[in-house]
């Protein structure tokens, strides 16, 4: 059985504000050294998918730079490998992707040419660790046309922001509620589709030319009763960075606070691969005071760091104080500076004695800012 992986990574999200001015949400740095897309990409590679197409659109530069030739994910291959699928200009004009279905439709060649039987469609914004093999088995054992990855969401998720499904005792989906107040179930769709490739091609050919551009709303939901659509139950940790700055901040803090989550994301069911940077180990000086924090390679710490994530190559000078914050790669916090409840993007400098303090919503310092 061969599976083609497709990752939707073109979206832009207003709710991430300054963090996505210069990058797609899939390229958002997270957990000290990763970018959001690393999780889905690694899940696919760990599940032995050797051909992966990444659909990009919004501000793809940093995403492209990150993915490169796919070397870090063992996707620099003769057979299969990594394909970047960008909107392009053809003989008949230029087409931005109008939606997820349209994006795949415009890249029909990758579906037509390969010898894969199935397509796994995921999103570059989701933080979770999973081997898809059990999902394939579930799909076959149910004789499903389409299997959607779902999860019973607890109260820490704002359920009205998710599509939810109602399933029968066989996990067959009978109803779907797209982002409604008080849905009848808390079983949410996690944005991962597993589908027979030829069925997907048929559905796209019959829908997209007629103006249906969204894979879920226009292609699958109108046929939810004629197709056998099943819900596979995912029990692990799952978050979506696209839900906003608070959600992004919360994910980072959860990873600090909960060793279970760290073990699940990073040490079980394969590794999370990311672009290598060749930094030396982190160095803790004689005046350093670090508590409950995640520290990446290449950091040089002489100050105080509490409940924070320090990405690679961050320097914290003596007397500086960082609390409840996320400091991205290469930033410098000088002597006596105070940073609290803040997200500091890459290559920023907080000068001697300056303060940067957020409240309920963390304050964001844009890339390469100096204060």
């Amino acid at each position: 059985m061969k599976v083609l992986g497709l990752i939707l990574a073109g979206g832009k999200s207003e709710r991430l504000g300054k963090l996505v001015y210069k990058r797609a949400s899939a390229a958002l740095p997270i957990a000290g050294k990763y970018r959001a897309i690393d999780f889905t990409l690694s899940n696919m590679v760990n599940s032995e998918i050797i051909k992966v197409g990444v659909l990009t659109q919004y501000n793809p530069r940093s995403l492209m730079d990150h993915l490169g030739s796919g070397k870090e994910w063992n996707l620099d291959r003769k057979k299969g490998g990594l394909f970047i699928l960008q909107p392009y200009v053809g003989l008949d004009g230029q087409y931005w992707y109008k939606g997820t279905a349209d994006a795949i439709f415009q890249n029909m060649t990758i579906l037509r040419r390969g010898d894969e039987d199935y397509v796994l469609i995921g999103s570059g914004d989701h933080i979770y660790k999973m081997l898809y093999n059990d999902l394939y088995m579930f799909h076959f054992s149910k004789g499903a046309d389409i299997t959607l990855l779902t999860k019973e969401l607890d109260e820490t998720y704002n359920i009205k922001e998710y599509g939810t499904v109602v399933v029968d005792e066989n996990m067959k989906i009978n109803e779907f509620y797209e982002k409604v107040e008080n849905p009848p179930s808390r079983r949410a769709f996690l944005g991962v589709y597993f589908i027979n490739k030829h069925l997907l091609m048929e559905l796209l050919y019959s829908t997209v030319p007629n103006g249906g551009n969204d894979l879920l709303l226009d292609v699958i939901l109108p046929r939810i009763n004629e197709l056998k659509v099943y819900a596979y139950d995912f029990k692990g940790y799952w978050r979506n960075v696209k839900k906003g700055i608070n959600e992004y901040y919360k994910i980072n803090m959860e990873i600090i606070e909960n060793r279970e989550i760290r073990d699940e994301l990073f040490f079980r069911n394969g590794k999370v691969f990311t672009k290598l940077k060749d930094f030396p180990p982190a160095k803790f000086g004689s005046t350093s005071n670090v508590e409950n924090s995640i520290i990446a390679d290449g950091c040089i710490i002489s100050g105080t760091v509490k409940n924070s994530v320090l990405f690679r190559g961050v320097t914290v000078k003596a007397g500086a104080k960082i609390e409840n914050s996320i400091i991205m790669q290469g930033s410098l916090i000088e002597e006596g500076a105070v940073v609290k409840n803040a997200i500091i993007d890459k290559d920023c400098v907080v000068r001697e004695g300056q303060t940067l303090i957020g409240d309920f919503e963390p304050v964001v310092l844009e890339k390469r800012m100096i204060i």
Partner: protein
Amino acid sequence: MRNVVALILAGGQGTRLGVLTERIAKPAVQFGGKYRLIDFTLSNCVNSGIYKVGVLTQYKPHLLNKHIGIGKPWDLDRKDGGVTILQPYFTEKEKVWFSGTADAVYQNIEFVDEYSPEYVVVLSGDHVYSMDYNELIDYHISKSSLATVACMEVPLSEANRFGIMVTDLENRIIEFQEKPSEPKSNLASLGIYVFQWNFIREILIEDAKNPESSHDFGKDIIPKIIQTKRVFAFPFEGYWKDVGTIYSYWEANLELTRPIPAFNLYDENWRIYTHSEEMPPAYISFDSKIKNTLISEGCEIYGNIENSVISQGVEIGKGTIVKNSVIMSKVKIGENCYIENAIVAENVIIGNSVKIGIGDFAENKLNKDIYNSEITVIGMDSIIEDNVTIGKNCVIGIDKVLPSNTKLDSGEFI
């Protein structure tokens, strides 16, 4: 671009590192948290723009071979050149092992000839230093030299450990003493050579025919060619260390944790590349106090650490104190342990309430020449169970198991 081939001698056993090289070659020993010793020389090569590299292995090469692989981390996976592992091989003449450093190069003449280089640099795979070999080669050319030896001034008291050179005003080598008891100078050879290939090629062929020769660059080749040929000493000013003994290995690691270390791992223009496992950033808990320490990715730290180097994927439990120690990758240390002046090799598992490095110094009973300081060494893959107490200057071999409540006095070994 000059046509240069680098040959890295990586076959050495490093006997003075004792149990650390019982399973692996010296160039494969971990150093500085995430590196192995050969990374420094390999990184020097690529940072100097030398992309044709042969690595000559002999002693227990498996881990080293796996580490180097096709050279990807050093950008040495190339269509032209790249890295080639040169192992001893069998021929009609039935000779198999490399008998000396010069013999090792002699047996690989064909490999070098493939590239028809003008210069060959011969390097050691077990030194810690940063050197731009272009400066060495430029110097070699400027002196119209046939062979140039990189050297450094060392304290006269230590000169008997090195090859010592006596030079004239122009830096031409006029006398070479290999590990002399009465050194005539303090200019020591660093085991780093650049040769005109067509010159040294003939010399090596000649030397191979000489049954009297031990086929070593330091003992045979250099002393012979200085008599008639232009051979120069290149004065190197920088950090260079042969971490050949337990003490110097430990000391060089701990030096990296100083505020301004003698050797800079953080130079962005001279990165040290390595093959490292993909691991998440380190986690430091509420209860930890960490001072003057290097911590690598994948660590989960709940204890207190001072003046130590912690490699990738290490776990240190709550209430544990680690001081003045080198902890290699994937070591797991339980809760409430006390570990001082120790080198703990890869994959060792230490239980709860274990004490290492306590009591008074005593002479080591296994080998007092190798284990001659307060440092206790624990070999790869060993298991130390709960409540074990180990004194100073002890040695635990590889794959050993110390059952609960074992007490080992200073100087003992297992």
